[in-house]
């Protein structure tokens, strides 16, 4: 550079601090581009000349042998340029992320209804879609297991079962004064990201691929493309600017489409885009696991648990995918916030001939938590106490050796007792409880219910090596900054928060920092953006990178101006070097450049303290816990089972919030998503194994009218994370999803009012109006018989 840029920065001199530092509620970095339509998603990118459109041909049976596959009509169809099957794949044919089992295309055998058999590339999207429907396939159908019960009966598992155990649960249960057992079916959930699966693969001259995609795990798809093409990982570059929602559905399930586009791109030498139509997207991608939970619990007359045996059987679909870790996380959360003196938790990974279920916000945690919250409600009815009191009495606490989980992690900070107390008061729980009892006595048709449920969610990947992150920061000679890290932006505000962190380190306004697309050629070997860890990991790595450059600038300035490092102060877009100089950040950067100081640095972070011995099911898998609680109130129509959530009050511990507005946005959105999971979002498969609820016409996520009219969300004040997390914040992505459990519990409360709160109605999820009405009808049977079947002590 011969001519240097202007470093003058126009800053508001009245401004006392930088704009957009940590703890400020700045808008999402893309907000203005979102609202104007200028934010580019993968399908919006200008694409190379000659780009082809790929589509997949899908199996039309659930399970069986492929006797023959005649693709002649596909190949002859208008616009078709290329057709590939498994035989056209040069390298690995299996793209299972952890364990094998996920072939790119069906390998002689159909594993679920809708499994991709082949792919076609054509001149446009319509031609590709039409051609993909023209295959003539002969099958020999085989019997299929569609339900968890069927898979269990066959002892058919995708991975071995696993047990976490403390003490002798069976003995504790039989010794206890009271005992209950019950079961609960917990439905799955479609991620329903608004932007469907999409990838654009561009062939590179060296024989590699540059991929533009919507994917939570650029490194993994990079590796898989390399393996499938039998080329080194270094020849694949993945570029991921933003997703239109991910929610776990693009952690592994975005890979297959990227791989297919890449194979076709290498085969044709042309760029290939693949974008799944919504009905196919919902059919061929995995969902939140459905579970069957069964429990046997012993407790005292006040409802304090003495022993719990619980089995959690997850419907995994046809392959392992991430199910091992997902069921582990369900088991890790089967205590939720409650001390289990003796416990035996068994997790089964049941194989079914359905799409392979995958990550979804919470990653098994929600199902484990729902199961134990159901147990607590059942206990409360049995001992005839307000469920909130039973919850409080069962919480982990610092006294009486009630502070260790069934997997051996000590609860070091007891945040929930105080948090619940605070929410109980701010939501006027007790007063409303009484009003609801009065209302229910006066109304024959409509019933109200209320519930407060807590959340304690473990933060860290339970697969230890994933708890690392990298970042790359460039400072340019005008003082502008490019920021890159391994995390992906899917709407959660990660790019915003990390930019705030870097702005705070350099003490410059956030608009000086450009967050750039996640790219495997900038930061390699990254982890998926998942497990609520995005900010914890990448924020730390970015801070480390920024601190490295900042230290170089300090050392340079101290030497250059002949003063001490302590005299170099970064504040509000300026750098004051003792009495010697007062420079803008850009002026210092330029001066440093002229004196040959590197202005680019990488940063790296790994989470400390965590370890876990899975064989012993013992250790400290989580760096810390995120906590929260919600009170939901519902109004139920006992004639139709229809209901409304009329009010929600939430208090969530996010530590020292990096951005309160974004955190509240995560909490509200997660609560509504959790509510949807447990209420209207119903996945229904036909007897033929075909998913029938495969579009937003049939699969109903919450709409705007489902948001409670009264919706009070607060962040727990003065609660910095005691662990050394990024600016003492806490993760917020997943934990609040489980606040939605309070809606389900409130529905059960409203229904239980019909039996004077003496019976705990079974209410499988999603608690559609139909299931609610079914529970109501069960309670309207004579009470005596009911009670026998529920209280068998």
């Amino acid at each position, binding site marked *: 550079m011969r001519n240097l840029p202007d470093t003058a920065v126009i800053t508001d001199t009245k401004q006392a601090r930088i704009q957009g530092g940590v703890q400020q509620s700045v808008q*999402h970095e893309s907000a203005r581009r979102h609202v*104007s339509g200028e934010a580019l998603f993968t399908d919006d990118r200008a694409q190379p000349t000659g780009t082809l459109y790929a589509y997949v041909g899908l199996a039309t049976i659930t399970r069986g042998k492929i006797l023959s596959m005649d693709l002649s009509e596909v190949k002859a169809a208008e616009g078709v340029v290329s057709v590939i099957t498994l035989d056209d794949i040069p390298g690995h044919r299996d793209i299972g992320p952890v364990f094998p089992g996920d072939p790119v295309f069906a390998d002689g055998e159909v594993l679920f209804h809708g499994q991709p058999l082949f792919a076609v590339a054509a001149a*446009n999207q319509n031609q590709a879609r039409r051609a993909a429907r023209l295959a003539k396939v002969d099958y020999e159908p085989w019997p299929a297991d569609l339900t968890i019960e069927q898979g269990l009966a066959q002892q058919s598992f995708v991975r071995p079962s696993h047990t976490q155990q403390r003490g002798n649960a069976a003995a504790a249960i039989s010794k206890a004064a009271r005992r209950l057992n019950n079961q609960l079916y917990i439905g799955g959930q479609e991620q*329903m990201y608004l932007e469907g699966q999409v990838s654009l693969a561009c062939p590179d001259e060296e024989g590699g691929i540059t991929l533009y995609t919507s994917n939570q795990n650029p490194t993994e798809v990079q590796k898989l493309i390399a393996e499938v093409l039998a080329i080194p990982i270094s020849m694949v570059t993945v570029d991921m600017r933003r997703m239109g929602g991910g929610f776990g559905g693009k952690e592994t399930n975005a890979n297959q489409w990227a791989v297919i586009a890449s194979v076709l791109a290498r085969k044709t030498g042309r760029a290939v885009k693949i974008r799944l139509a919504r009905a196919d997207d919902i059919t061929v991608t995995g969902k939140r696991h459905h579970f069957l939970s069964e429990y046997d619990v012993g407790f005292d007359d006040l409802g304090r648990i003495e022993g719990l045996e619980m089995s959690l059987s997850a419907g995994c679909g046809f392959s392992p995918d991430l199910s091992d870790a997902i069921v582990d996380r369900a088991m890790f959360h089967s205590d939720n916030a409650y001390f289990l003196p003796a416990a035996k938790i068994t997790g089964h990974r049941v194989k079914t001939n359905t799409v392979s279920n995958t990550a979804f916000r919470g990653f098994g945690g929600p199902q484990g938590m729902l199961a134990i919250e159901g147990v607590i409600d059942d206990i409360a009815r049995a001992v005839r106490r307000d469920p909130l009191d039973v919850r409080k009495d069962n919480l982990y606490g610092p006294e009486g050796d009630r502070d260790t989980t069934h997997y051996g992690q000590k609860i070091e900070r007891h945040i929930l007792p105080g948090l619940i107390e605070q929410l109980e008061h701010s939501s006027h729980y007790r007063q409303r409880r009484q009003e609801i009892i009065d209302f229910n006595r006066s109304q024959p048709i409509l019933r109200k219910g209320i519930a407060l449920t807590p959340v304690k969610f473990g933060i860290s990947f339970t697969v230890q090596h994933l708890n690392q992150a990298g970042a790359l920061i460039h400072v340019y000679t005008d003082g502008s900054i490019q920021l890159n890290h391994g995390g992906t932006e899917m709407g959660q505000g990660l790019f915003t928060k990390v930019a705030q962190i870097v702005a705070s380190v350099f003490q410059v306004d956030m608009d000086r920092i450009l967050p750039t697309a996640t790219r495997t050629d900038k930061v390699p070997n990254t982890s998926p953006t998942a497990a609520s860890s995005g900010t914890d990991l990448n924020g730390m790595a970015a801070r480390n990178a920024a601190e490295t450059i900042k230290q170089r600038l300090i050392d340079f300035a101290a030497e250059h101006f002949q003063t001490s490092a302590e005299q170099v102060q970064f504040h509000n877009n300026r750098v004051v070097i003792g009495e010697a100089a007062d420079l803008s950040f850009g002026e210092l950067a330029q001066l440093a450049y002229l004196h040959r100081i590197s202005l680019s640095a990488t940063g790296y972070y790994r989470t400390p303290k965590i370890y876990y011995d899975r064989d012993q099911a013992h250790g400290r898998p989580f760096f810390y816990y995120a906590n929260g609680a919600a009170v939901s109130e519902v109004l139920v129509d006992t004639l139709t089972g229809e209901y409304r959530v009329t009010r929600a009050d939430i208090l969530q511990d996010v530590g020292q919030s990096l951005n309160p507005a974004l955190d509240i*946005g995560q909490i509200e959105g997660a609560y509504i998503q959790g509510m949807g999971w447990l209420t209207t979002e119903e996945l229904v498969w036909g007897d033929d194994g075909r998913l029938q609820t495969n579009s937003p016409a049939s699969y109903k996520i919450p709409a705007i*009218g489902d948001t409670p009219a009264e919706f009070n969300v607060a962040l727990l004040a003065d609660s910095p994370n005691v662990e050394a997390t990024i600016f003492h914040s806490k993760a917020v992505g997943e934990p609040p999803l489980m606040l939605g459990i309070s809606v389900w519990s409130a529905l059960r409360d409203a229904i239980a009012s019909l039996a004077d709160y003496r019976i705990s109605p079974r209410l499988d999820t999603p608690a559609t109006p139909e299931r609610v009405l079914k529970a109501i009808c069960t309670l309207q049977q004579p009470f005596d018989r009911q009670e026998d079947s529920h209280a068998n002590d």
Partner: protein
Amino acid sequence: MIELLLNGEPLQIDNVDPNCTLLDFLRDQLHQTGTKEGCASGDCGACTVAVGELDGALDEECIHYKSINACITPLANVHGKHLVTVEGLKQGQQLHAAQQAMVDCHGSQCGFCTPGFVMSLFVLGREQAGPPERHTIEAALGGNLCRCTGYRPIVDAAVQMFDPARQADSDPFQEKETQWVKALQGMNRTDEVQLKGEGRQYFAPDSSSRVSQLLREYPEARLVAGATDLALELTQQLREIDTLIYTGRVKQMTAIRETDSHLSIGAAASYSQFGPALTALYPHCGELLERLGSRQIRNQGTLGGNIGNASPIGDMPPLLLALDASLRLRCDDQLRELPLEQFFLGYKQTALQTGEFIEQVLVPKPAPDDCLRVYKVSKRFEDDISSTCGAFWLRLEPHEQVPEQQVVTQVRVAFGGMDAIPRRAHACEQALLGQPLNDNVIAAAMTALARDFTPISDFRASSDYRLKVSQNLLKRLQLELGNDSLLTRVNQHA
């Protein structure tokens, strides 16, 4: 050729496949990618655009904007209209108030649904003089799904966009309106419009007789109005329809007229167009009309379409059967009137003969003592298809011998979602007729209903639930007609 204004600029389109949707045209041919595809079935609202029209009946000087789903709109349906997309709102660097409010309220997270919300907010902003009630916001945005925010900040934005501080310095929608009105007036508004391309054709005739003539000429042609159902054949089943005949410009088919005895609704009138007139006569239709589809669907979908596709789960037929509506059918110059009850023959089968189409729907006006209730039950309140939909029309009059007792002297009960066609529940009606609405009579009517229907099980609801709820709706009817003070519906008391 068709012509329109796109974000204020005239645009002529020719030689484009008439099966092309407005969304695909915007994204693939104009490369305007702000409008998103979320589902291509009109269920998520990510593709929402605003369409402005001169409303001849109201005011020729103003452009009236409404939100529609571009993904299920045949391109040529926007002929002669002002199409506003998300790209058309920002003026220079200045955001429109709807956009600014969304930014300020943190209304976007992933941003994919955001352009659709912005367009629905834009329309809301033009409909309302000041900050709307929550209910109005929900009605305007019920067809826009967001998976990230939980909607609270979007509700806030819908209020804050009316804040004077957020208004842009210049509003082209006011400043240029006169110019745009002139441009729209200059577009072909009377003669037949055609779009041809890829060997397929689209006709937009202006009279019923021309529709007939075209149907004779092209027996395989499909009539299209709002296309909310037909477009799914294009986007989901990938059908190719060679000839489309658009009925939205036919005066006889869009007019809404009231006579002494009837409300006559043109078959191609949208829900938004005929809804107010129907609700004025029958206020108890209001909830059904708000829960039928979404605002975008109600702006596009038509009464003739809802009846003509003969779906077992259409929401208007049960109501219209209970109201004893009839259809005016046309074939060439032959007009006949057919009671709606005789129209549905079997699953997706109707009494329409070759070349015949629904021109108008005739709804009798109410008598003072008529009682009407319509109950829709679905998994989700907004934009969902009914598990069951029951409509109850009855007249209560004093008993001849016991004048202090009110008895049912006339009754029509009809259900959708309970059989292969929407139809009357005659056994149930018989159980009610001549009886007071007491517990025993309702119990008998509930039992009778089980003789009327053996509903199917599907992903929306089981057979048992459909029947049980439909029976329980009779209890709700009894309670609502007997005691005003009881709470009977959860969505009235949120």
